[in-house]
């Protein structure tokens, strides 16, 4: 048939035409274009100069930073501290191994056709934390013990964020289910838990975890500051997570619950096979938002004396051996956070697209 071979008319514009249509269509549009163009020209050049062209990359110490641009020497010289904290040099291979495993598990998630990436992802959420649990602190399998007080830098940030994310999702799911439970005691406990944790600033939670908790614990029971901070962050975030997930649960039509009931699935299978897969998919943006905010909130452990990546940089920029390197330090920290948060965000967009089964109902 003639119609079936017809293509929609092509709308190819020459660059000049495109510009006229999109950038200079009206006098105020033209004005805006010129103003933004002026700002870009005057700011991008100097920025690039500072970041790259006039920046200092080579040398030994502060005295080698002679150029007008950024002193990246500062970052490269202290990189070891920013990544590992006080983790002993000769044992850093253990941390490196974890970084490698992390990359193996999650980088393939961005490659559409990577074989077995689902299994790598599952490994990342199960095997990887278990290996880390033995490898990083040591003390078993003949591994030398490294006190958690020596952990720091990017490694500590990732540990806090990773465990926080991994634990807050299931706890959040249970709390959300609890809040919608028909059993008054479970519902009551969930409501109280969520409302109490959500109403307290994270800083307060961290202070309480580091200062007050030991006062309540029985004599002799003392677990590390890091573990306490981690529990605080996780519970605090899981309260947020619960509310995000509850939103998804509420958006599932009653007919889905009834159909699952009528098939005799029972509560847990109904939730696990029918309701949660739909509800979680619906709130992926909210869940990812919570993950990203958790990732960044880990910097607050600074105030209870743990040195995450921001903490290590913060303490180094005040080092008298390096003068005027604060901007370089903070740009580096911002970049670290951006890389991971952007990665989480991209991954979630992939996931959303993949899970979209295009239903009209």
């Amino acid at each position, binding site marked *: 048939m003639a119609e079936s071979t017809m293509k929609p008319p092509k709308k190819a514009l020459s660059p000049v035409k495109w510009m006229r249509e999109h950038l200079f269509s009206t006098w105020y549009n033209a004005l805006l274009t010129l103003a933004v163009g002026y700002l870009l020209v005057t700011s991008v050049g100097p920025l690039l100069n500072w970041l790259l062209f006039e920046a200092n990359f080579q040398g030994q110490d502060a005295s080698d930073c002679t150029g007008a641009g950024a002193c990246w020497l500062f970052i490269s010289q202290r990189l070891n501290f920013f990544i590992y904290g006080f983790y002993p040099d000769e044992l850093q291979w253990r941390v490196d191994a974890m970084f490698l495993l992390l990359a193996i598990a999650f980088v393939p998630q961005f490659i559409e056709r990577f074989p077995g990436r689902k299994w790598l992802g599952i490994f990342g959420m199960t095997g990887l934390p278990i290996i880390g649990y033995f490898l990083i602190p040591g003390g078993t399998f003949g591994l030398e013990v490294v006190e958690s007080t020596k952990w720091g830098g990017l490694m500590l940030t990732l540990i806090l964020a990773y465990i926080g994310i991994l634990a807050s999702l299931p706890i959040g799911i249970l709390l959300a289910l609890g809040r919608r439970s028909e059993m008054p005691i479970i519902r009551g406990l969930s409501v109280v838990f969520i409302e109490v944790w959500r109403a307290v600033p994270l800083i307060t939670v961290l202070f309480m975890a580091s200062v007050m908790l030991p006062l309540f614990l029985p004599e002799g029971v003392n677990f590390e500051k890091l573990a306490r901070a981690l529990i605080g962050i996780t519970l605090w975030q899981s309260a947020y997570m619960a509310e995000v997930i509850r939103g998804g649960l509420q958006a599932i*039509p009653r*007919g*889905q619950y*009834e*159909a*699952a*009931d*009528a*098939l*005799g*699935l*029972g509560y847990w*299978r109904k939730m696990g*096979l*029918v309701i949660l*897969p*739909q509800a979680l*998919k619906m709130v992926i943006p909210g869940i990812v938002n919570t993950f990203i905010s958790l990732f960044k909130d880990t910097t607050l452990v600074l105030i209870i004396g743990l040195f995450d990546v921001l903490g290590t940089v913060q303490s180094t920029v005040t080092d008298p051996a390096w003068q005027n390197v604060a901007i370089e330090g903070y740009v580096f920290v911002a970049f670290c956070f951006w890389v991971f948060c952007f990665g989480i965000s991209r991954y979630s967009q992939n996931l959303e697209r993949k*899970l979209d*089964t*295009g*239903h*009209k*109902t």
Partner: protein
Amino acid sequence: MGNPMTEQTQTSNATPSEQDNTGKKSDIIRVEGMHKWYGDFHVLKDLNLTVAQGERIVICGPSGSGKSTFIRCINRLEEHQQGKIIVDDVELTDDVRQIDTVRREVGMVFQHFNLFPHLTVLENCCLSPIWVRKIPRKEAEATAMEYLERVKIPDQALKYPGQLSGGQQQRVAIARALCMKPKIMLFDEPTSALDPEMIKEVLDVMIELAGSGMTMLCVTHEMGFAKTVADRVIFMDGGEIVEEAPPHEFFTNPREARTQKFLQQILAH
């Protein structure tokens, strides 16, 4: 023979009088003096009904008369507050295990299909057989394909419900319920959300199912369907069973004034 519905035909039609050792057909559903309230609102009032195995019952009545509520009580999607409901010798009480036992034996088809949109048609059909009946996946899929063939959509097995028409979705919903090999099927206005041209394809499936000896309780306003397949028609109004009669008698010679009025309204269209 690989045809699941015909097997049922043989067992139930060949030996109708041997299903109970007393000689009469066994009652698969017994409702005795059942009442239900929504808060203070008395929706169902003193309902009594016995359904024999293989019987096909159509329930009709004006909107809000409690038809849906009634059949939803039979698989305990709604709970009753007084009286007894006994399904396949299991009484429905608060006991969750009893409820699950009953739900395994009772399939339900809803007005709005309620297929699971995140699963394919085949996965919809296999979900409960695999997880509740613990049937191996291969076997469950084979059974599901047989039923999808019976409802004439085996070619849609790998699609998602959102990609199907209403009539196709409702036929999938019927196949999904049948995959659990239930003893009883409940239908709550299965065709009233469908466009006229799709109603027939669903009714055809239901008529065929009725012919196979399945015990069916069907809320519907399709009077043609009631006339052809029902053993009994039940008319409900205001939460009560007003009249109960074989279809011929029900349509030609209704006893109660309320039934007559309802029939006039419905047949006027």
